[in-house]
């Protein structure tokens, strides 16, 4: 192999990887907040699928990708409210509630797609999100194209990391969230409305994953059945890997974003590996990573427990 494909390969891995990172980052940041307040939201995959479908169809209907993002947010909000009602107000087991919303999300989006746009003779493409190069920085050789020529959502996701970190650890509201996750009863006794805080974080998380789903659809301008392909589950894994710290969430998203980019990059340079092995890698890597850090990993004490006043 000459030098050329290798350098192309690395450039591809990073450019594609940053796009993948955004997907994981948006969803896992939201999940980190939800889990920090004690709610394990397993429905991410379904919410993202719904977000992708809403994003795709809104973008086509309004002929504007930014309306598509709005659609993703709307989808997240819609399913998030149902999940929050079941798991928080009704106090149903969170694993069960998450799995059923996952099925609903996957089901509605795939089913609606086959009923509507999927019936069309032609593949309808939605307008895609345009790259917004950052002036001057994007003109830098090599790295300019890699890092400073992405869509507005990419930039937003990276900016959100320090913002959400600061909000969680340095503001009063953030500490409220942490206390609700650690000890809901104590939080309640000092006058914090536990379920209200949890509703807020879960809805925020759902909106973020809806956005992430619409981003997936709007970067390629397409929707297809099973478009999320497990990336919602990986985002949940990244949230666990991060120890519910947004900063480590970025680290995990980058790691898995780059790992996920290996597959498409190998395909671009025409290297022959069965694609299933490439698809497996993020999942395998997640297990290995979680194994390695599991000794240090600690979840909030109230994690996974519905809260009932007595």
């Amino acid at each position, binding site marked *: 192999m000459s030098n050329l494909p290798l350098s192309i390969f690395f450039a591809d891995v990073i450019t594609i990887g940053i796009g993948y990172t955004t997907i994981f980052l948006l969803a896992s940041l939201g999940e980190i907040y939800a889990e920090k307040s004690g709610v394990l939201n397993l429905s991410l995959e379904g919410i993202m699928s719904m977000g992708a479908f809403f994003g795709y169809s809104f973008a086509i209907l309004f002929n504007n990708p930014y309306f598509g993002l709005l659609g993703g947010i709307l989808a997240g909000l819609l399913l998030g409210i149902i999940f929050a009602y079941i798991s928080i107000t009704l106090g149903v087991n969170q694993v069960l509630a998450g799995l059923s919303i996952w099925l609903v999300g996957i089901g509605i989006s795939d089913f609606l797609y086959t009923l509507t746009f999927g019936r069309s003779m032609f593949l309808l493409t939605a307008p895609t999100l345009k790259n917004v190069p950052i002036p001057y920085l994007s003109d830098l050789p090599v790295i300019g194209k890699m890092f400073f020529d992405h869509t507005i959502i990419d930039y937003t996701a990276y900016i959100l990391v320090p913002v959400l970190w600061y909000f969680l650890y340095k503001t009063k509201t953030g500490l409220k969230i942490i206390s609700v996750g650690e000890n809901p009863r104590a939080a309640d006794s000092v006058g914090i409305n536990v379920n209200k805080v949890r509703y807020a974080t879960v809805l925020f998380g759902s909106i973020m994953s809806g956005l992430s789903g619409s981003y997936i659809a709007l970067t390629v301008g397409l929707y297809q059945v099973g478009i999320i392909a497990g990336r919602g589950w990986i985002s949940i894994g990244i949230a666990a890997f991060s120890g519910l710290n947004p900063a480590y969430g970025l680290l995990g998203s980058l790691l898995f974003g780059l790992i996920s980019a290996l597959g498409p990059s190998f395909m671009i340079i025409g290297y022959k590996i*069965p694609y299933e092995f490439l698809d497996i890698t993020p999942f395998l890597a997640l297990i290995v990573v979680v194994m390695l850090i599991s000794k240090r990993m600690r979840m909030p004490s109230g994690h996974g427990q519905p809260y009932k006043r007595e």
Partner: protein
Amino acid sequence: MRYMLKETKSDLVVDILIYLMAFLLAIALGAFLIWFLLKINPFSALSIIVSSSLFTPIGLSSTFEYLVPLTLISLGLAISYRAKYWNIGADGQLIFGAIFTMQAIFSVKNYVIWPGLAILFVLIMGILGGALYGLIPAVLKAKLNVNEVLSTLMLNFIAIYFMTWLVDVTGPWKDPYAAELESYPIPYKFYLENPLILLSIIIISIFLIYLLAEKTPFGRYLKILGSSKNTADYIGLNKTLTYIYLGLISGALSGLAGALQILSISHILSSDFDSIYLGYLSIFSTWLSALNPLYVVFSSLLMSVLITGGYFMAGIAGVSQLFIYYFEGVTFVSIIVFQALKHRFKKVIKNE
């Protein structure tokens, strides 16, 4: 746990009434889209589901086909969930059971003297495959404290992709004459289609798991571990071993389900071998059974009726088979909502 024990003692008639209401709501919601788009009203949808899945020969056999794996998997999950061991990796274990079964069949198919023995061997290999795959998350949890929800989920994806590779064009098992991603079919002598044998396998499994859960010290440990980890530590319970046994048992049952899927239904391994996600569906039937091994068969029957009926409804309405995911999701949401609201409903019903 306390809540659940209370539930099982409650008034059976009221319970059934509540389930019926949930069921009706679910079907109304499930049929809503179809009704909205294709003008089939919910009541005829209900009659389609029940009559097609239970009162037509083809529907009945399809219902039975789902009943077997759902019951087997749910039995393993029921005892796991008693100990709050959230194994949601039944799909991966089912697939690895199927993979081991196929490998065993390919290895011994030329040396079969007595088919019964060969089938038994193949089934045992399937059980082994599932059990080994179920062992991984259990060891990870027991030794490294890795959250089992996460690890079993990831293992599901790994199993699905591995299976897809096996039957893909570059994989070793791809049948070159098949258009789809399919393996070579298994020889006819390995077919196990007698419903009586399948039924007896279910009944024996239910009986064994019931004995294990209710009549042995192990079953008591599970309840203790599920209700309080501190108590379990206090009485000196070996948590490591308990998780490992649970991983092995639930994995073995899923593996058996996978082996039976190959021998009795699909006869091939294909990329959409588990496209309906039997493992995830079993989580719901497990939950509906209130974690009681004796009720598992009824909740699995309900689930099978829903699946078969959903397929029929999709067929009649002329919509995609993907309808089934939507329908299932909506059904579970309304059932768990009704379950959670049960005590409120009970007050209303009893006052009248």
